[in-house]
């Protein structure tokens, strides 16, 4: 019997199985940290007299959730992370001016490689599986042990294989695809499972689109989303790995070990032809409550938010700007765009995208997670509705009493112009 990519990564990283097949203790290649879930772990380590890290080169930290700090409490959280990074010689620490949304900036810096094990105190850590890695969100205690010992526990990685055939129509994106998949699986359908995305639709996707797809695996309960590494992966990583390999082909050959065997055992295999998939949007307050934009067209909104670890990358800003170019947003809405990293911001500036957003009437913020979870930079008032490119539409997520509709950047931009949920002109049907 062959093995899945997750099983292969587990095999390579297994430290031991202290209770038989019940639990695997894995060695970690990377531990990512941000200022919301890490400070409590740091404080606990300090109070135990264990203020040290297993390997400072494998720990990466960023202040991203509330930045710049909005009050004394968030300033203190930033300070705890900053001081800790300094004392423990963590060189890859990204403070204000160099900071971006964790799941955008860490891949951008080349910190995730095929075959890696990655944890972070953040549920959207599943994003990094786009590189053919096993990456999982954990709580502060797992994070604390990861920081101290470089290990984490996981159950056997059962996998749901999702084969995506056909070709996405113009104006339909990986966000629409993942909303469709979550609708199919439900919010509890992939609990304790790895979600393996494969097929011609994935082969044709950019790394940015694959990250959007894997980012929302957790919304179906998935431990990690994963795509096989291919030449798209190698091209993305090439600036960081060019000294390690004689050629891109050599890198691809090395990374090809991180692909599931043809006879691997799956918990479930699902196959879809997504050629006719339309732009999708959530209603209600669970990410599996999904309809086509066509079905939801005309529903009024108050705020548009384009950004986050799901859809704040350069590809997303290009798509939204293509829709907004030459248009103004409706007088009935306010628009906020938050490029996910400084490099994305600079690129958007150089390409003229920032000017398009501003001319349309958008507020452009610095890179931060803020609005997505109602912490800063775009919190909703009671009864307000946001058209958002983020990943969660839970009740009160972006502000107490607020409602969130999740959608692609194209749909969000089109919705900004009309003030009502609207299909983008990029979707021709």
């Amino acid at each position, binding site marked *: 019997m062959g093995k899945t990519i997750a099983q292969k990564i587990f095999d390579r990283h297994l430290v031991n199985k202290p209770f038989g097949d019940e639990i695997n203790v894995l060695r970690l290649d990377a531990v990512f940290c941000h200022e919301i*879930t890490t400070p409590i772990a740091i*404080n606990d380590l300090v109070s135990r007299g264990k203020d040290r890290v297993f390997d400072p080169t494998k720990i990466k930290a960023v202040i991203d959730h509330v930045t710049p700090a909005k009050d004394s409490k*968030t300033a203190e959280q930033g300070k705890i992370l900053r001081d800790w990074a300094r004392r423990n010689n963590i060189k890859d620490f990204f403070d204000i001016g160099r900071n971006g949304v964790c799941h955008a900036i860490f891949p951008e810096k080349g910190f995730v490689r095929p075959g890696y094990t990655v944890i972070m105190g953040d549920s959207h*850590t599943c994003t990094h599986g786009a590189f053919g890695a096993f990456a999982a969100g*954990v*709580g502060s205690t797992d994070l604390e*042990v990861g920081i*101290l010992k470089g290990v984490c526990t996981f159950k056997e990685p059962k996998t749901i294989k999702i084969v995506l055939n056909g070709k996405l129509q113009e104006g339909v994106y990986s966000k629409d695809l993942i909303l469709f998949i979550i609708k199919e699986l439900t919010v509890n359908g992939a609990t304790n499972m790895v979600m393996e995305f494969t097929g011609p639709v994935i082969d044709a996707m950019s790394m940015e689109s694959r990250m959007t797809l894997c980012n929302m695996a957790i919304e179906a309960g998935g431990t990690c989303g994963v795509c096989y590494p291919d030449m798209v992966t190698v091209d993305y990583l090439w600036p960081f790995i060019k000294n390690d390999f004689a050629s891109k082909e050599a890198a691809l050959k090395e990374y090809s070990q991180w692909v599931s065997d043809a006879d691997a055992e799956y918990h479930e295999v699902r196959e879809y032809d997504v050629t006719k998939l339309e732009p999708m949007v959530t209603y209600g307050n669970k990410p599996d409550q999904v309809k086509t934009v066509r079905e939801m067209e005309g529903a009024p909104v108050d705020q548009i938010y384009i950004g986050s670890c799901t859809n704040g990358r350069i590809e997303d800003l290009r798509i939204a700007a293509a829709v907004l170019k030459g248009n103004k947003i409706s007088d009935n809405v306010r628009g906020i765009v938050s490029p996910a990293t400084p490099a994305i911001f600079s690129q958007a500036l150089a390409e003229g995208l920032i000017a398009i957003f501003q001319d349309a009437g958008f507020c452009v913020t610095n890179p931060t997670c803020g609005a997505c979870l109602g912490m800063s930079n775009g919190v909703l008032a009671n009864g307000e509705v946001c058209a958002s490119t983020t990943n969660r539409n839970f*009740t009160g997520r972006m502000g107490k009493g607020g409602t969130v509709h999740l959608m692609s950047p194209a749909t969000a931009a089109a919705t900004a112009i009309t003030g009502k949920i609207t299909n983008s002109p990029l979707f021709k049907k």
Partner: protein
Amino acid sequence: MKNFKGKVLFLDRSDINTDEIIPAKYLTESSKEALKPFLLEDLELAGFNPRTDIKGKAVIVTRANFGCGSSREHAPWALEVNGINVVLAENFARIFRQNMYNCGMMAIELPKEQIDMLFKKYSGKDCEIEVDLAKSIITVAAGSDKDQLQVKIADFDKCLVEAGGWVEYADKNY
């Protein structure tokens, strides 16, 4: 070990997420105790009032996929500082479940039929539940009604509860 016995809070809904258990705006608190007044503040459940319904409870009984969404360990912490160290459900979101045991608390899965029975027979009554970790038995009682349920608690999870959490265990073993 923590206390695993007391009055029961029945939450008759599936997919209760960690944003509902403790909203993100309180994640700027740096002490667990500060989370106490905000537990389940945003829970969408008809008839539920967090100000009156949580006090004095030690066990939650709920439906499927409890604790889905964010990885915030603030969710178990908010339960813990309110004296709730056990949740019984059909199943749990992976991260929430692990966080509970990592804190020396318990997230126990019961078959849907047993959860249905608990709601049907005990919800709305002055009900008490006790978990006997060593025997893996849950005792449910209200007035003259009483049930004992054999449950599965994995050896690793037991070990974490006994050790007081994952940091203690990992520090000794890795």
